[in-house]
């Protein structure tokens, strides 16, 4: 037989090979580690270094956390418990347990704690229709009245105060509708003037009158009783809620063709951004008192909210301007060519796209604003950081540091991380460009 023949010998497979698992290095955890942890010598060195750092941190913190004491009335009690057990000092979380109500509510009257808690719960109800598409749209009505309801529940007093404040907006809207036939500009100006007139001239008498006719109210709580996370959340959420619309208006104003509006917006943005927030807060505390007519009592928390709002609005204006600049000119032209007027084009075409582009920047500013509320400690408001100083000054808890700051940091982290995750969800949900 020739060798050519042997190569072309007929062959039929009589047994089928079973499926085999891939070699060890190509499957499961080994494959994952090889690709993600030890992919080359640099990667391997970095992995080992990271492991050393993690191990060191766990060894340093772990035993300290393991020796945590949760129920103690003072630091000396904690120390005594450690001494009895014969172990070195650990984490004394008793301080959180002992002062939780204070860290949450400051000096808010104990029997009224239900009011801030109710407001927080209602806040989530009010936010739902704004944040999530599955929430019923009728809830938006509740979102609209929530700021007034929340104010009334927190500060208490006559119900006619928030009602009259809300009526100012109604007056503005009524003016807008009534004067619409005279042109958009006149109607818009009237819509700004009418509420201001209402608040300055009518509101005081209205509250007095209604209170004498039908006294309705709950126990009042003065601003200096507010503190802890209550103050952070009130300032943070009000600032966030007010600064976004203001920031959008400033961004639009900066792009305006009207020289006066444009320069006012530019000067405002550049001035506010060029000044440290703490300076603005000191201004709120000291100087506003001089500028306002004598005798006006202007709540300190309210002043801080105004300053924080203006500060964040200036940053947001620039973030939104970036989004506006990223839109092609054709979008404006198409909106114009279809006959949409300026505000409709902004609301339906321009802003939905510009804000979508700006989401990361906007949320960034919001997170910054929320954390910056801790600066109010410098003007004497007792936010969590301010309270931590007060707690550490008490004889029971003198000498405690880490536990308080870890707790405060953790609570802030929960809110900020929540905002961050929400912004990523929103970006995913609004992605329609299919790139």
């Amino acid at each position: 037989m020739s060798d050519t023949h042997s190569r072309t010998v007929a062959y039929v497979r009589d047994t089928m090979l079973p499926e085999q698992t891939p070699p060890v290095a190509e499957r499961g955890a080994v494959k994952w580690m090889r690709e993600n942890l030890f992919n080359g010598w640099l990667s391997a060195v970095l992995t080992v270094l990271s492991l050393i750092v993690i191990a060191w941190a766990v060894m340093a913190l772990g035993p300290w956390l393991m020796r945590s004491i949760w129920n103690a009335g003072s630091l000396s009690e904690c120390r005594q418990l450690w001494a009895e057990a014969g172990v070195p000092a650990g984490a004394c979380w008793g301080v959180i347990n002992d002062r939780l109500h204070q860290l949450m509510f400051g000096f808010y009257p104990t029997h009224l704690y239900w009011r801030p808690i109710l407001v927080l719960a209602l806040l989530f109800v009010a936010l739902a229709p704004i944040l999530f598409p599955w929430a019923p749209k009728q809830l938006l009505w509740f979102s609209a009245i929530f700021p007034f309801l929340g104010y009334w529940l927190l500060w208490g007093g006559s119900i006619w105060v928030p009602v009259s404040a809300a009526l100012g907006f109604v007056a503005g809207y009524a003016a807008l509708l009534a004067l619409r036939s005279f042109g958009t500009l006149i109607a818009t100006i009237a819509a700004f003037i009418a509420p201001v007139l209402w608040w300055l001239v009518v509101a005081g008498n209205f509250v007095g009158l209604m209170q004498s006719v039908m006294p309705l109210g709950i126990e009042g709580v003065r601003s200096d009783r507010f503190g802890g996370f209550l103050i952070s959340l009130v300032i943070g959420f009000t600032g966030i809620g007010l600064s976004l619309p203001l920031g959008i208006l400033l961004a639009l104003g900066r792009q305006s063709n009207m020289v006066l509006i444009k320069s006012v917006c530019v000067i405002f943005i550049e001035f506010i951004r060029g000044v440290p927030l703490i300076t603005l807060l000191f201004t709120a505390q000291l100087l506003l008192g001089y500028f306002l007519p004598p005798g006006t009592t202007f709540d300190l928390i309210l002043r801080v909210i105004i300053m924080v709002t203006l500060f964040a609005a200036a940053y947001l204006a620039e973030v939104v301007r970036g989004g506006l600049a990223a839109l092609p000119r054709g979008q404006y032209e198409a909106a114009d060519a279809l006959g949409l007027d300026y505000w409709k084009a902004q609301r339906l075409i321009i802003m939905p796209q510009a804000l979508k582009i700006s989401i990361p920047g906007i949320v960034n500013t919001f997170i910054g604003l929320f954390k910056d509320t801790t600066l109010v400690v410098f003007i004497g408001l007792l936010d969590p950081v301010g309270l931590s100083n007060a707690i550490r000054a008490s004889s029971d808890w003198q000498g405690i540091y880490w536990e308080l700051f870890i707790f405060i940091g953790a609570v802030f982290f929960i809110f900020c991380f929540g905002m961050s995750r929400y912004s990523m969800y929103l970006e995913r949900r609004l992605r329609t460009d299919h790139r």
Partner: protein
Amino acid sequence: MVDTQLDPGIDRAIDTSQMKVTDEVAIQITAMNKWYGAFHVLRDIDMTVYRGERIVICGPSGSGKSTLIRCINRLEEHQSGQIIVDGTELTSDLKNIDKVRSEVGMVFQHFNLFPHLTILENCTLAPIWVRKIPKREAEEIAMHFLEKVKIPEQALKYPGQLSGGQQQRVAIARSLCMKPRIMLFDEPTSALDPEMIKEVLDTMIQLAEEGMTMLCVTHEMGFAQAVANRVIFMDQGQIVEQNEPFEFFRNPKSDRTKLFLSQILGH
């Protein structure tokens, strides 16, 4: 110069029975001038468009042809002279501008669909917010025109999911939903692949067959010859020559026109 019939770009016979020019004036432009800064883009334009006319405006780039039709719905402001559209003069009065814009449809080179809205929402937006038509009715109108441009099945997709030709047809449908009396086309096929040019031209020809008053800035000379009743040649911001298409292509009068035609027709 060109004696033969140019290829109109579509595969069917064109029905000219409804293409009738009336005596009614649709657009009247008188002694109109426009400058970009010191640059004189449009010089002394005089032009009357009658209802039912299909006008193709051509010319080299930078000749002001796009600017001219963008002045007609005030995307560009003219500095002197008069533009009257459907009896409404374009001045800085916003009411007049909005009135003209809602009567005049425009199709852009880059489609300019709204990417955050579905095809259907793109088409219903202006009828709902400008014309104040109830949503359901606006959706019916939109579906009618989407069927007309042969893409009703895409109604719930987003513009980013469509091909260029489909997007341009949506853009045409979006304009038609406002029931305009005049349509402006600003180089509607210049950003498209040859395959897709055909489907857009077909839609435009269909519109002409129904008697729409149209002004098209385009380089599609086959379309001009088959559909237009008048071709206007512009150069350096002026109307250099205008004529009925057959004569325009066969016997151009000015040297500029001859040069342009020889370049664009590739002879």
